[in-house]
């Protein structure tokens, strides 16, 4: 007799199933591999990162060496394919070298904030009501200031420089990551499957690792990736205001600031650092979207 309840919803009795066990993360990886857009975006990002890492080889000129004779050459000038800036430095070389600082300023604060904020958020979400109140009220203090203002204030107090930019952006991003993680963890904690795991006499670390983390990490990662583009733009903004990287070091925000006076003379060249910021942050946003849909295994993929 056929047990109707034992039939899968699709009635696909002979659906091929390999004997190899699969886990959540391997399923997510399989789904990512089939997502062409996300793979493409990841390749572009890797290319940008590789250019920044191998800047000494990718650059055609010294990014700091200018020449009064070659000021503000347009795009397509022989020898300077992307033109030159207001002191005659090669834009391509500066963009490539600038990517180093911009990417570091974009990714490092988010990475640090995810570690700190994620841990705090998990503690607040899983911990007692008292712990939760303590963490979340402290976080609320940081929410009282607009993020740009907070970053400027912190940088203004501790001084300009790349290390301080990273520190101030880390502080700015920690608060929203704590909040996102806390709300995800609180939601997951109240679900029956966590209660079932507790009822199975499993130790707390195992419950956090196998039951809570896979359900929190997805949302957290997606949110963090979307912050990378904000971080690049914010650090560019800080440099623009003279609080981040100091000239003559190449950095996309700083380049944008310096070239802004040339916008009527040579608008295409003046826009190039902005284009670099745009492409990079767009890639991170698309990557974040791809990650989101790969991790939501209920969606067909």
């Amino acid at each position, binding site marked *: 007799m056929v047990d109707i309840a034992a039939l899968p919803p699709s009635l696909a009795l002979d659906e091929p199933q390999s004997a190899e066990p699969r886990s959540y993360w391997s399923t997510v990886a399989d789904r990512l591999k089939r997502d062409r857009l996300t793979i493409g975006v990841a390749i572009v990002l890797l290319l940008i990162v590789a250019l920044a890492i191998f800047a000494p080889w990718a650059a055609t000129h010294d990014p700091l060496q200018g020449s009064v004779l070659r000021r503000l050459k347009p795009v397509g000038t022989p020898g300077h394919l992307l033109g030159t800036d207001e002191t005659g430095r090669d834009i391509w070389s500066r963009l490539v070298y600038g990517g180093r600082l911009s990417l570091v300023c974009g990714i490092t604060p988010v990475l640090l904030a995810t570690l700190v904020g994620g841990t705090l958020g998990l503690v607040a979400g899983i911990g007692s009501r008292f712990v939760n109140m303590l963490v979340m009220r402290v976080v609320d203090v940081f929410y009282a200031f607009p993020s740009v203002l907070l970053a400027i204030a912190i940088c203004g107090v501790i001084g300009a420089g790349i290390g301080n930019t990273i520190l101030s952006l880390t502080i700015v991003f920690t608060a929203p990551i704590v909040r996102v993680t806390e709300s995800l963890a609180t939601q997951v904690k109240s679900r029956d499957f966590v209660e079932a795991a507790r009822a199975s*006499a499993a130790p707390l670390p195992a419950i956090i690792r196998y039951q809570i983390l896979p359900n929190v990490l997805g949302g957290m990662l997606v949110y963090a990736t979307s912050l990378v583009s904000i971080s690049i733009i914010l650090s560019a903004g800080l440099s623009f205001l003279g609080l981040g990287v100091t000239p003559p070091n190449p950095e996309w925000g700083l380049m944008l600031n310096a070239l802004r006076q040339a916008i009527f003379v040579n608008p295409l060249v003046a826009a190039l650092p902005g284009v670099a910021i745009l492409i990079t942050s767009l890639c991170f946003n698309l990557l974040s979207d791809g990650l989101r849909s790969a991790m939501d295994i*209920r969606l067909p993929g």
Partner: protein
Amino acid sequence: MSEARRLLDPRDRGGPAQPLLLVRGLKKHFPTKGRFLARRHEMVQAVDGVSFSLMKGTTLGVVGESGCGKSTTARLLLHLIEPDAGDIVFDGDSVSDPQGISVRELRLQMQMVFQDSYSSLNPRATVSDIIAFGPKTAKKLAAQAARERAESLLDQVGLRPALFARRYPHELSGGQRQRVNIARALALEPRLLILDEAVSALDKSVEAQILNLLADLRRELNLTYLFISHDLNVVRHVSDRVVVMYLGRIVEAGEAEAIFGRPGHPYTRALLRAMPSMDPDYRTEVSPLTGDPPNPINPPSGCRFRTRCAFAEAVCAQATPILEAIGNDHDVACHMMVPGSSHGRADTVAPVND
């Protein structure tokens, strides 16, 4: 076979005469979410002094309206919620006794199947991982051994491992998910299974299949069931004994046939009259119970049912009725059933002969 297993079960301590589970005066009052820094929190009296015993190899049904404390009782038994008072004795070992059974051991021997089959399965784990979780983490089984255990359990609950082990919960139907839930609960080889509305969310044909599966498993594994449900027909079908709860207290307890055949408490009678009749000549026309149960924050004094009881008198507000025997293994908490209480009907109510 079941007799042989019972004798062979190395975990059995007191023999068949000793209840597997003995609950005494279980109590849980939840503070309401008061205003910040509120001076006094109001208490929701979710479970207020519940006592019962559960014999080995039997099924105890727990019935009552929503919000009467059935699910809270289940969670208190597993210490998923810490009880305010009361004791749980598992096969002679008390949880409150330092020399007795630990909460960890208690959970290994007592497992629960939840009502919401979707919410109770981790959406980001495969069926195999869900079932293997307990053996792997609580019993420290190697990954491979835990996976094999999961597959044999899947087989036992009627799901082909080759087809289902690698699936995710959202790829299963409601009945299949509940089978996975049962397999997960069985993974730690418990002796007692708490079924908290385990079949209530399923449609009737699937419900019947799951009930048959539960009956088979009970025989094969010599399990004891605590069957919580609001569905009286199902409770009558599966239970040996039944307790009726109202607003956090037990109002009637006894053998299923006694409760359904000769209900003593007015609340039980009202519940039974509210059951849809299968005979069109005997329709349930007037609703025997009106309104909702009173607010458990401020329950009525004395008998908690008196505000909805047709026979309520002055004594019902003054004295809290306690469970008194009205027959062989049949207890009722109602002043009417106690000859000599100052209730007007106490002496006219014919004693029930069991």
